[in-house]
C-alpha cells in the first residue's frame, strides 16, 4: 500500500499538480528562458537540483527549526544551493550560464521551491520529500521542454538547433519574443483545462 502512495507522490507533479500549468507557479523562468529547447532543459535541471537538495535538507532539519524562523532558514538554504548551481554552470558550462543569465539566481525567489518546502518537505520524512521534489522538478522541466519545443520550432524552425522545418518556412518571429511566450503559455493552459474537462465528463 505504501508503495502505491509513494508512486503518486512522484507522479502528481506531472499532471494533477503540475507546478507550472496547474499551480501557476514559477512563471518567470517558464516564460523567460524557453526561447529554445536547450535553455528550457538546462533551466529545468538547475531547478530540479535546487528543489531536490533543498527538500532533502529541509526534511532532515524539519524538527529542529523553530516555526518563527522557518521561512528565513529555508530561504538561506535555497539561496545557498542556487549559488552552488550558478557557480557550477559558470565554471563548467559558460555558454548555458550566459544564455540563462539572471534567471538562474532568480530561482531563489521561485515560488515553486519555497512552496514545496512549506506544503510538503517541512512535515514529511526524507524519502517522501525527495520523491515529491523530484516529481515536481520533472513536471516543471516537462513544462519548460514543451514550451521550449513549441517556441523554438515555430520561432526559429529548429529543435535543439537542428533545422526541422525546411527553407520554405518563414519563422514566426513573435514566438521567440516575450509576447509569444505569454500567448503560447495561455493557449497551453487553456488546452489543459479543456482536456481535463473532457476527462471529467468521460469519467
Amino acid at each position: 500500500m505504501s508503495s502505491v502512495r509513494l508512486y503518486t507522490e512522484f507522479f502528481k507533479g506531472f499532471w494533477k499538480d503540475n507546478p507550472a500549468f496547474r499551480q501557476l507557479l514559477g512563471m518567470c523562468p517558464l516564460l523567460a528562458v524557453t526561447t529554445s529547447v536547450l535553455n528550457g532543459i538546462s533551466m529545468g535541471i538547475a531547478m530540479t537540483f535546487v528543489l531536490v537538495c533543498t527538500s532533502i535538507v529541509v526534511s532532515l532539519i524539519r524538527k529542529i527549526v523553530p516555526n518563527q524562523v522557518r521561512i528565513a532558514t529555508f530561504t538561506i538554504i535555497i539561496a545557498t544551493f542556487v549559488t552552488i548551481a550558478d557557480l557550477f554552470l559558470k565554471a563548467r558550462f559558460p555558454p548555458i550560464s550566459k544564455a540563462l543569465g539572471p534567471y538562474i539566481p532568480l530561482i531563489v525567489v521561485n515560488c515553486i521551491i519555497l512552496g514545496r518546502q512549506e506544503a510538503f518537505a517541512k512535515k514529511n520524512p526524507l524519502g517522501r520529500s525527495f520523491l515529491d521534489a523530484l516529481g515536481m522538478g520533472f513536471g516543471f522541466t516537462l513544462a519548460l521542454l514543451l514550451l521550449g519545443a513549441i517556441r523554438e520550432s515555430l520561432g526559429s524552425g529548429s529543435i535543439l538547433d537542428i533545422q526541422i522545418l525546411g527553407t520554405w518556412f518563414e519563422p514566426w518571429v513573435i514566438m521567440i519574443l516575450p509576447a509569444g511566450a505569454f500567448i503560447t503559455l495561455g493557449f497551453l493552459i487553456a488546452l489543459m483545462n479543456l482536456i481535463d474537462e473532457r476527462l471529467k465528463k468521460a469519467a
Partner: protein
Amino acid sequence: MNISAHMIIVLTVVSLFSGLSLVYMNEYAEPLIKINQEKAMKEAIFKVLPDAKDVEKIEQDGRVIFKTVNEAGELVGYAFVAEGSGYQGIIKIMVGINPELEKLTGIDILESVETPGLGAKITQDDFKSQFKGISVSPGIEYIKAKKPEKPNEIQAVTGATVSSRSVVNILNTTVKEIKEIVKKIEPSGEGENE
C-alpha cells in the same frame, strides 16, 4: 530551551553551513570561471584579428586595449570592446583594427538584445563581414538598400536601420577614442609601420 535562543542558534548554524559550503564551492569554481572568461575573450579577439597569435592587455585612461602580435612577433593590430545603446538595449562589440588605425580587421557582436529576426540580424555574418577591411577615416557610414561603393560604407540591414546605425555610431565614437589612447601609449609606433 528559551525559544529566542533556539531561533538564534538555528539561524546561526544554518548560515555558517551555508557560508562554508559556498566558500568551498567558490574555491573550486573561481579559477575555472577566470579561465573561461579569458578563453572567451581571446576567442573573440582572434575572431576579429585572424592573424593574431598572442595578446597583450593594456589598460589606459579607463579603457582596455588588446595589443596583438602574430607568430613572428610582429604587430597585427589592436582589439577593443565598444559599447553603446541600440534599438532595445546595450550592444557590446569586439572590434579589431590594423596597426595604422585606419582599417577595421573585423567585428563581433558580444552582447545585444535587438529584436529577433530584425535587429538581431546585426549578429549574422552577412552584416558583420562588411566591416572587414572597412576604412574608418573620416568615419564609417551606412547606406540603405544599395551596394556600398566607397571604402567607408556598409549596407544597413533591411528593416533594421536603427540597429545598423547604432553599430556604426558606436564604432565611430569608440574608434576615435581608441586612436587617441593608442597614440598616447605608443608615440613612436606610428611611423614605423608605414
